[in-house]
């Protein structure tokens, strides 16, 4: 057996006993250190005659590579086992709770306003606004409400002045007047907003939300009104078919006027919109009264159109199965957690309005 083979077999026997990095270092020193066995062999190279040297050097290098490789392998082995050993002790109970976080939610009214805006955006409506405090003129007179109309009474309307000139708007309709006075037709707006009436019981709150719609242009007929509302109701309730009926009614600011009912039924305690044997009133609408258009100086020979008003809170109640209107405004954390919406649920057309 040559010296090299001997070294090799000694190494092989030793490497198997290596367990730790220290052992590995020892064996490294023993063979590759300053006086290591392999190092020694390299030192002998100079004394050999050239003939032998070539072969010997070649063999020595082979063995050196082999041993280095083995050391490398062993190193990885030890490191792996050391890591595994370490990780064994690092185990945590992942079922433990995370850090407490506060969960924010969007109020159902806000969510529904976003849904509605998204729906009407598709058909070219833009959102308009107006102040909560209104003049008697914008809220009533300009909207063709007679001087003696009961809605003007103190038990229906909140007033800020004894002479009844300033009030909290009772509907979003005065924004029609503001919008039409501020600009020229055509108009295609929706107006979501806070509205106020002196009413407070289980089904009435002194403040509620209304959505006004107004479309004034050349040749806008009741057929357009019907199409617009049919589209809206289907989109909003996310159903393909909604049986809808227009029922003649009366509002001072529209003529003809109608209330719109949709079919519904109760199934397993939940309301199903669109079909069934019951009618549900959802909104009021009509063709804008010529007196209203005259009040905002619009040429009624050229322009006409429709308006509608919808209770936003009521829509939210219907769609999301909320029973009590008053709860909307009571800021109860439990209620808000239950009925509120995740901030990332932004209603969009491409992704759908609601989860």
């Amino acid at each position: 057996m040559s010296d090299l083979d001997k070294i090799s077999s000694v190494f092989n026997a030793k490497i198997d006993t290596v367990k730790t990095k220290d052992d590995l270092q020892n064996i490294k020193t023993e063979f590759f250190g300053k006086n290591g066995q392999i190092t020694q062999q390299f030192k002998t190279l100079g004394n050999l005659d050239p003939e032998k040297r070539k072969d010997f050097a070649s063999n020595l290098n082979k063995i050196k590579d082999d041993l280095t490789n083995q050391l490398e392998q062993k190193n990885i082995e030890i490191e792996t086992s050391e890591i595994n050993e370490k990780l064994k002790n690092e185990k945590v109970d992942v079922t433990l709770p995370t850090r407490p976080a506060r969960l924010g939610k969007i109020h159902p009214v806000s969510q529904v306003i976003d849904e509605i805006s998204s729906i009407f955006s598709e058909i070219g409506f833009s959102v308009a606004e107006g102040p909560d405090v209104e003049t008697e003129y914008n809220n009533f007179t300009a909207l063709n409400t007679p001087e003696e109309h009961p809605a003007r009474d103190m038990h229906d309307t909140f007033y800020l002045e004894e002479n009844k000139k300033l009030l909290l708007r009772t509907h979003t309709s005065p924004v029609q007047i503001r919008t039409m006075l501020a600009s020229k037709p055509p108009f295609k707006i929706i107006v979501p907003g806070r509205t106020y009436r002196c009413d407070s019981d289980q089904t009435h709150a002194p403040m509620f939300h209304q959505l006004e719609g107004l479309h004034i242009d050349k040749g806008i007929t009741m057929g357009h009104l019907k199409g617009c509302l049919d589209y809206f109701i289907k989109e909003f309730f996310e159903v393909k078919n909604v049986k809808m009926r227009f029922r003649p009614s009366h509002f001072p600011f529209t003529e003809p006027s109608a209330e719109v009912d949709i079919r519904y039924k109760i199934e397993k305690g939940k309301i199903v919109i669109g079909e069934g044997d019951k009618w549900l009133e959802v909104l009021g609408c009509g063709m804008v009264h010529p007196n209203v258009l005259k009040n905002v100086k619009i040429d009624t020979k050229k322009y006409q159109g429709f308006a509608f008003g919808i209770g936003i809170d009521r829509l939210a109640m219907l769609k999301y199965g909320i029973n009590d209107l008053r709860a909307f405004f009571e800021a109860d954390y439990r209620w808000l957690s239950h009925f509120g919406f995740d901030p990332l649920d932004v209603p969009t057309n491409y992704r759908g309005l609601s989860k």
Partner: protein
Amino acid sequence: MIITIPWLKEHLKTAAKENEIIDQLTNIGLEVEAIKENSGEMGKFKIAKVLKAEKHPNADKLKVCDVTIGGKEILKVVCGAPNAREGLITIYAPPGAVIPKTNFELKVAKIRGVESKGMLCSESELNLSNESEGIIELKNNEKEIGKSYFKGSSQRAIDISITPNRADCLGIRGIARDLSSAGVGKLIQPIRKKIKQNTKHQVKTSIAKEKSQGCYIFGSCYIKNITNKESPEWLKNKLIALGLKPISAVVDITNYVMFDLNRPLHAYDSDKINKEIIVRNAKEGEIFDALDKKKYKLKKDMCVISDKSGVLGLGGIIGGTTTSTELETKNILLEAAYFSPSSIRKTARELNINTDAKYRFERGIDPNSIKEGLELATELILKICGGEASKFKIVGKTNKKNKIINFQVEKFEKLIGVSITAKEIDKILSSLGFKCKKNQKSLKIEVPSWRPDVSLDEDLIEELIRIKGFDNIKLIEPSKNRTQDTLNFKQKLFHLSQRSLASKGYMEIVTWSFTDSKIDKLFSKGEKEIPILNPISSDLNVLRRSIFSNLAFYLKKNQDRGYEDLSLFEIGPTFFGKNPGEQQIVVGGLKSGKINRKSWLDKERDVDVFDIKSDTIKTLIELGIEEKYLFVSDNTKHSYHPGRSGSITLKSEKGPHLAYFGEIHPAIIKNLDYKDNNIFGFEIFLKNIPEPNKKLRLSKKSFQASDYQKSERDFAFVIDKIFKIGALEKIISEVDESLIQKVSTFDIYEGENIPKDKKSVAINVTLQAVDKTLTENDLDEISKKIIDTVSKKTGATIRS
């Protein structure tokens, strides 16, 4: 307006079933609100007689009555009515009956120790009137004891909601006319018997010529020698079915005519009239005893019917006691008049009276119905009570002409979107009582006197489409094109701030725009209070001047509900004046409690001002403002803790005010008595966030990232205690903006080794160049520059 089908059919010849009629009513705009099934249930209420009424042994105000309903059994009933007395004929409800007013089912019950079998009813409990003082006193005779009181009411009563424009449908005939027009049968033309009118009219009547006279026409008939009595069954049953209480033949007939023809009438005992009837304006302070047993103090300009002695009635609203008819009344004056709706409405509102007559007059009665009303009522009185009638005397403006509308046929299609023929128009309008004449291109349409609501083309169009049916309108699909933005900049900010705050753990609340002045005062900056004249309650009496007024209240409510660690926000208007537009949208948030409450992971700590500052700043960044433009100062307002709050303005201290943040003032917290006092808040003023004139993609600098190594240097400055760290950081950043990438303070130390009025601030500065790796030399150079600049501008020294 309540109707019954049999009564309707007296005006309408139809084979339609009840349900078809009901559906059609709603279809033509006469919305059926409720159908009251009276059958069976109402039959349980029996006419009864009190045999004996004794004081309850255990209660002063109660009586124990022996009641008979005809059989041998004597029923013991406990009753609290002061008028329960021996011999009284009244209405008895047995156990099992459901009281209409309360929907409460009666049971045999012990009342203060005495068993009561059923109860004796008041008019109010039976929904006959608002009369709740005492039990009903019937004038029926003994033969009827034991019979059902509501015998005629096995029919269904249909409650129709009549819109304010349709005064004509407040009579059954008007409803029949609408139905006939819609194809449900044929309107029956009434056949009036010629009545004998031979007696002389004994009462002079006149309408005083006065400014704002509320009465236009006063018609009357004098009838003498009548025998007033209980109404016949058919009449009583009709009224009971509508929910009215029969009183006497004369009164019942006037009511009958009112509901039949929408023609209110009034009957006076003419023997009680002092000489003559004068319709005039009341004198200020004049006193009037009305039939509702109340005394009214009148104001001038209220229209009254008077005689030489005083006020007999409030025209069109309510009669008076002095001339009221009784069963003994022999001679009567029957009134049919026309009052102006606005006069009626004004008087009734000021005196707070609501009657069936007022309800009709204020909506507009047919001024031409006076004669027909008098005819029908006189005919019935003569038939039931006998007597002799005079000719009708009608004074006032009787010659009002009907309105004429020249209607262009094509206007219908222009507004509705479907066409109609002149023939169809003629058919519909004629059936509603309009008269149509064809002109060259238009129709000349005469509006009947009972339709004060129709005066424009659009009004006619509504009539036409109402009867033709809305179902006939073909819907036009909306076109999906958008020519203008859906939301403007401010609206986008509104929506974005909601999402932004909710994503930071804030719960959105929506509260009233009004609030409690006591709380509002705590948060206002001294702007004038904006009271509501007629608030819903005294603790919701002002418009809120601060977004905190309600937030603070509801935070407390939630704490009281047992919630800890709350974050709430609201976005909505606050008001700084009472005029329209004196309002702004504010985003307000409150955060209370602890961070990491009962966490096994981290140390629990109180929410602090830097939590609320962080939320505010992150929100502003999300609203589109670059962090470097957010200027933070300790300018604050009185509702915050003076030492732990501040302002954020745009770019500099003088820039637009974007937000306040900080701890809520301890005095306010104490005032509102919170369970957890650790409360922080912020207000963001959306109106002060400027709209960028370019889209972000256009205003962004081109992308440049350095591939060279970055270095960090730490500095410890000893600086005046009052010097703001924000300002110090800014000074350092500005030393060389191309090299200094980041400046952050990581420690502040005061105490040993540092002079009393100084603090030591440790700041880490990140340095990186775009074009090379900074050498040791470069770094020393910039470090020196930083130290020199800081020392020059602040007087700070480097800590050795």
